[in-house]
């Protein structure tokens, strides 16, 4: 059983971690694509509009072929991923993002929904990287 104090601290940590991630990730995807790979675990599993990809390098390569994007995050939420019977070490976070995205010269705002699972990086446990990502255009 996870007690209330550790619940609160993991909730707080996941909210802070998500905020940091969302701020920097969407800035990178809009303006600094070259840095995208740094956000990923090398084995990240990604599903983009039903297309599976593995690893940040693959995603970054895929995004090089993408027209210019302008994402706008309109809401996001995060939760710690709790598993009964596991120790209280740092847990993974789940993040759900809802927003709009414009592609290329188009003025049209598409709606998108994106879900991430963030986990502590294997090289730097203080840094969270994308382990799983699911993206869909929803409007």
């Amino acid at each position: 059983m996870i007690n209330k104090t550790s619940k609160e601290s993991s909730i707080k940590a996941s909210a802070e971690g998500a905020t940091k991630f969302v701020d920097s990730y969407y800035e990178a995807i809009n303006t600094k694509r070259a840095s995208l790979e740094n956000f990923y675990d090398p084995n990240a599993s990604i599903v983009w509009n039903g297309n599976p990809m593995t690893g940040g390098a693959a995603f970054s390569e895929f995004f090089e072929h993408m027209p210019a994007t302008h994402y706008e995050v309109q809401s996001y939420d995060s939760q710690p991923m709790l598993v009964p019977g596991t120790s209280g070490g740092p847990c993974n976070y789940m993040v759900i993002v809802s927003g709009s995205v414009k592609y290329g010269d188009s003025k049209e705002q598409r709606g998108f929904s994106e879900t991430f699972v963030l986990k502590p990086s294997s090289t730097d446990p203080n840094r969270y990287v994308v382990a799983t990502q699911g993206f869909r255009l929803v409007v």
Partner: protein
Amino acid sequence: MNSTALRPQGSHGGIAKRTGGRTRVDRDGDLDMVGPSGGRGGRGRGSRIRGSRGGAASRGGRSGAGSIIPTGPAANRTDSGQNRGIPARGPRNGAVSVSETLVEVRITGWKESKGSAEEAIAFLERKSRIKLRKTLRQGDTIIAQVAFPKIHSILEWNDAQFASSKLKLAAPSLGRLDVTERSEAVISRANPANKATVDTIQTLEGVLANRYNPESKFLDLSRLGEDVLLKANGFFQLNSTTSKMFPALMQVAEKKFTTAQQKRDTVHSVSLGYNNLKDVRAVSSLSVTFPDLKNLSLEGNSVGDWKALDNWRHRFKNLEQLVLLGNPITSQPGYVEEAYRRYPKLLMLDNVPADPLIRAKIQAETSANNASKPVPTGADGRPILPHKVQPSFIQDDYSVGMKFLSRFFETYDANRTALLHDFYDAESLFSLSVNTSAPRTKEQQNTRQFWDEYIPKSRNLKRVSLRGRVERLAMGPDEISKLWAQLPATKHDLANGDAWSFDIWPVEVTTGVMGMLCTVHAEFQELNEVDGPQKIVRRSFDRSFTLRPDVLGEVKVANDMLVVRAYGGFDSWKPEAPAAAAPASGTAKTGEAGKKEMCERLINQTGLKMEWANMCLEETGWNLENAWKAFLEAKANGAIPPDAYTTTTTNVPTIGTAGTGDGIL
């Protein structure tokens, strides 16, 4: 061009007055540094630091501004008689030099001393080696005049010990700028001579005022290295060069012209001539402060090529005149063409009017570019993205996710409690976030959306405080039940499969524990009890679940995250026709190559082994879409054995502790 026709130097008004524009120049022709609403009350006459000018100077091409450089190459150059478009430093045709401008200094504190007013003046003159002129006693105050460039030096003697007292010196007429902390920081970096920031601002303010000609709306920032004021104030000591001083100068300018309109109205032309610039990095802030500049001179610098001007690459789009004479760049091949390419409104380059042939060529080039450059768009007019929208991606060997989702949405409308009992344990988490600004269908665009029932529960982290973050996250069946009970009753339409999108694939919940991630996008109707025409509200939602085993190995929800937003329809996840689309008839694609291609696509989508994919396609008459549907159906019914999948897929641990391999279903 009619508003800012450039005339040869020496004729009336280097740059002709803009007649219709709103100006910010007071009766003396001084730039109003504060703006219409700013308090000018505290500022004495001395603030017009250019001093009085004769009528001749006012009519002349150049007023006193800039005449602080009396001799030297600048003056020679303009005297050489070439008709320059943008005026450079003019001859001293009777204008009063700023070095001759007097600023009032008020000296107090001597009355408390043992000395007299005369002795105090003599003391200050001796110590500072600065002549105090037109001294006048007014009660306890000595009023004296000091040449403007010396003003900061004399003020350093504020608080000086004089005959058992302290002398107080002030120059109230210099005014005091209300500067932001940011500009102070920039300025203090810019001026390592360890002067008080206020002094620095005053200096820069003085520099700007000296170099601004209100009639021609011309800011002359040429030869900054020779600027007496800047030099006198230590700006170019300790290698503090243009790179540090210029941004500070622009910061001060920003404070003076607060609106874009003000900037457009007051400054049409800027010269950065003769500043030894190799590129424009140090002065790039000019394009931020004066983005709508019409005339710009970089004459006599060391700009070698267009790359050196890249900091201004997409700036100054309204530029009508550019002067780069005296820079190596002018001998670069294609120099003229590139200038017209970069500045589409350019009318004159290096004082030569635009060659119509070159302009026509550039225009043709630009329109050709505009025609081909945009991102290619598809039949729907939308930019084509590198991957097409695909049907649901499902990698869910034991149908854990599929079974959960069917059960969840079949039950959710009628019996949320039953779901809590079956799928939620003490560590299960649920939260809701509302995206009130989400894009929506056209029909929804003008309808008012009501979110009252969701907002108090919304955990949109963009908006919710720390307390709400904890309170609005429900943990365990009790809290979740309470939260769900407060949400409007819903009706999910399971019959319309097109309205649903779901992707399911494995996820590591925590180190060593694998689970399933299910992302769902669909819609529901809100069954409101409210009266009126808007009885049934349609909403779109996104809902992501992670499923994990509990201690007994049962499937439980680890995370349940719901996003509610305005109705956005379901066209966006409709699979796009694959590149290797079946013929229009939708029937079999002939040829072995076509079959092979379809087979590969199905393997990609399903993770099936070649033989199974082949079989699936064979049974559905080699129609990829039908094969996909058949696959989903068979899968949902548990009709596809695990060994039908490729090795990579079967290797993915399903729910259950990773490594043990004992799936729970």
